[in-house]
């Protein structure tokens, strides 16, 4: 057992209100520089929809992630020897047109326009060329199903749905959508890292954050193609790729990443999980339908004595183990099995999990409110406005059972709390729902608390990074005493 610690994340989709505060917080801190204007390390998509970049989930087209090749894992894009023919022109690289061309407006024309009969206007100009552009699309053109004929109906996850179901989904009276906030998943088996010919990309051992060493990146752009989530971005100005850094400078100071800190819906949870690195390849090579379980299997129980012992041998500090024991992510993913990985069939084992949205038909215009205490309590889930199959394509590599049980449990918790607070549902019905969803009353209360009441400290349990100790292990801190000041990378020498 090779135990490693990983900072993992959960987004609770039932709580996301699609306000984009997270995206803006991130943009203001990290991507307001030249060459990064088009990047949204955090973006919020409307589902169904084609997302950003357009149709990023279609790996027939983008060739991201891993594929099983004679039972062996292989990059879909350009691994090993295949880099040689593709290094001059990467065949599956998206271009700026797949994202959008960033623009601003000539605001000064509003003030400097000569007097005339017409209102002055500020024309849009490209932030790349400075020339006038006709804006065709933006990063979020299909927000709230805008232009659904062009966008939502082309969602790659709809492919396996029957035409009938698809037609129903897009009937105007039935249309439903939810938000999918996305950041880099800081995957356990990152295809971006595996594809980087320069070795500039790496996973931090202590917390699993995936980073690009800007000094070593040589613009071979393999990572942009290889990441199936399209979460590495090419900075066209500096000629270096960049990506979400999980606000590691904030994490190291014990603070939540900016998108977590600012999240209005409080949908974001962060905590350490321990996993077994020896099993990655074996688990990632399983058939699609077993992948959700395979990923859960990788994650170890931080309370288990043998895991703790192995973690200590692997150099994980007691504080980090203790933080893993308090991890909200561990509870959502492994204990309660409520949170599921996005597109686990890409086989990168994303460390960002989603609690799928519960969207039952609450009422319809003829029949008034729908009652929840019928014989078949969970029929509402089957009748949910977004088909289970669709959610399963997103969050469980098509395995409907995994999504159904996650939804059932959420629904049962709601019924239970309704019984407790409103009382129009009998204890018997509520308990029956809990039993059906394999959830105890205690568990239901715990889920309710972490979902609805948890404070920032409970939602975001930042592992102590202990960089000061890490450095002591590597070298004598006194060695640098009196040698360097702030902002220097080498000792300042008089006259040089």
């Amino acid at each position, binding site marked *: 057992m090779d135990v490693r610690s990983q900072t993992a994340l959960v987004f609770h989709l039932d709580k996301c209100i699609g306000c984009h505060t997270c995206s803006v917080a991130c943009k203001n801190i990290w991507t307001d520089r030249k060459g990064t204007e088009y990047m949204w390390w955090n973006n919020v998509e409307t589902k169904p929809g084609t997302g950003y970049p357009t149709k990023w989930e279609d790996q027939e087209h983008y060739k991201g992630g891993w594929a099983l090749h004679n039972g062996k894992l292989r990059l879909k894009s350009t691994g090993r020897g295949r880099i040689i023919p593709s290094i001059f022109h990467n065949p599956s690289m998206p*271009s700026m047109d797949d994202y959008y061309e960033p623009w601003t407006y000539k605001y000064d024309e509003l003030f400097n326009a000569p007097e005339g009969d017409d209102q002055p206007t500020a024309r849009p100009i490209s932030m790349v*060329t400075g020339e006038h552009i006709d804006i065709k699309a933006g990063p979020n053109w299909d927000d709230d199903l805008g232009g659904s004929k062009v966008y939502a109906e082309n969602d790659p996850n709809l492919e396996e749905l029957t035409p009938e179901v698809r037609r129903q989904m897009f009937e105007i009276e039935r249309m439903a959508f939810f938000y999918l906030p996305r950041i880099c998943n800081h995957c356990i088996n990152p295809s971006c890292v595996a594809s980087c010919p*320069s*070795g500039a990309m790496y996973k931090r051992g202590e917390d699993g954050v995936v980073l690009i060493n800007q000094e070593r990146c040589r613009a071979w752009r393999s990572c942009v193609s290889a990441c199936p989530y399209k979460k590495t971005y090419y900075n066209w100005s500096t000629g270096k790729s960049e990506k979400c850094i999980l606000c590691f400078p904030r994490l190291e100071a014990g603070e939540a990443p900016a998108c977590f800190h600012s999240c209005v819906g409080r949908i974001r949870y962060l905590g350490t999980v321990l996993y077994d690195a020896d099993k990655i390849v074996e688990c990632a090579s399983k058939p699609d339908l077993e992948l959700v379980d395979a990923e859960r299997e990788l994650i170890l129980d931080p309370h288990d004595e043998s895991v703790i012992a192995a973690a200590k041998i692997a150099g994980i*500090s007691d504080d980090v183990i203790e933080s893993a024991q308090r991890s909200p992510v561990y509870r959502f993913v492994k204990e309660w099995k409520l949170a599921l990985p996005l597109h686990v069939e890409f086989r990168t084992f994303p460390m960002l999990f989603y609690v799928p949205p519960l969207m039952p038909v609450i009422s319809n215009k003829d029949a008034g409110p729908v009652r929840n205490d019928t014989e078949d309590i969970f029929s509402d889930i089957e009748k949910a406005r977004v088909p289970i199959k669709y959610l399963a394509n997103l969050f469980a590599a098509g395995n409907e059972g995994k999504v159904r049980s996650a939804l059932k449990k959420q629904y049962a918790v709601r019924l239970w709390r309704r019984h407790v607070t409103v009382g129009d549902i009998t204890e018997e019905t509520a308990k029956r729902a809990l039993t059906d969803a394999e959830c105890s009353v205690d568990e239901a209360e715990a889920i309710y608390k972490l979902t609805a009441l948890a404070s920032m400290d409970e939602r975001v349990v930042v592992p102590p990074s202990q960089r000061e100790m890490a450095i002591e*292990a590597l070298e004598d801190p006194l060695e640098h005493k009196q040698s360097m000041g702030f902002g220097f990378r080498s000792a300042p020498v008089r006259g040089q």
Partner: protein
Amino acid sequence: MSDTLLFGVLPYLAVGIFLIVTIQRYRQRTFTYSSLSSQFLENKKHFWGSVPFHYGILFVLFLHLAGLVIPDMILAWNAVPLRLFVTEATGLAMALIALVGLVNIVLRRMQVSKARTVTTPSDWIVYALLGVQIVTGIGVAIFHGWGSSWFATSLTPWFWSLVRLEPELSYVSALPFLVKLHVVNAWLLIGFFPFTRLVHVLVVPNQYLWRRTQVVIWNHDRHTTRSVD
């Protein structure tokens, strides 16, 4: 006199600049070592420029290096007329492919406004030098044929005399103008190399072929770091 300057001094100057600046740049401004790809800004024309150019130029460069390092083997190979013909024809064909690529690259850089915004004066110098180099090379191949053989008795010995630090200009003084231009331009290219995006040649990712698939970097020694009890 000018021969001394161009064939006795310029090579040392160029190599000197090349070594000093590439090393200094790598050590102090590693960040600037990048291929500065513009594929992201324009994805289609890029293929017809970059791909033929790189394949063509690499092949031709490889032939030149072979001529410098293993001239005897090249001569032996060329002893059969058919094989000589094959060498010459492939070399010329690859040079033409490189030229097509370069022309496409330059056209793309001029026509596509997004690509134009990331094109710097140093890029234009590189394109000009490469253009002269490829065109003169093709000229030599056409007007002064069988270069893959006479190369070994003029330019190769001159090159090694430079390496021995005893430049013997007699080997090159009688060469035709086109050949001289080709050679001088090559040294200019080497001298300008460290100031341009060409440095990406020095950081081709060969280690990728054998390194471990995943890269994990630890900030501590995994077996000694423990929290204080």
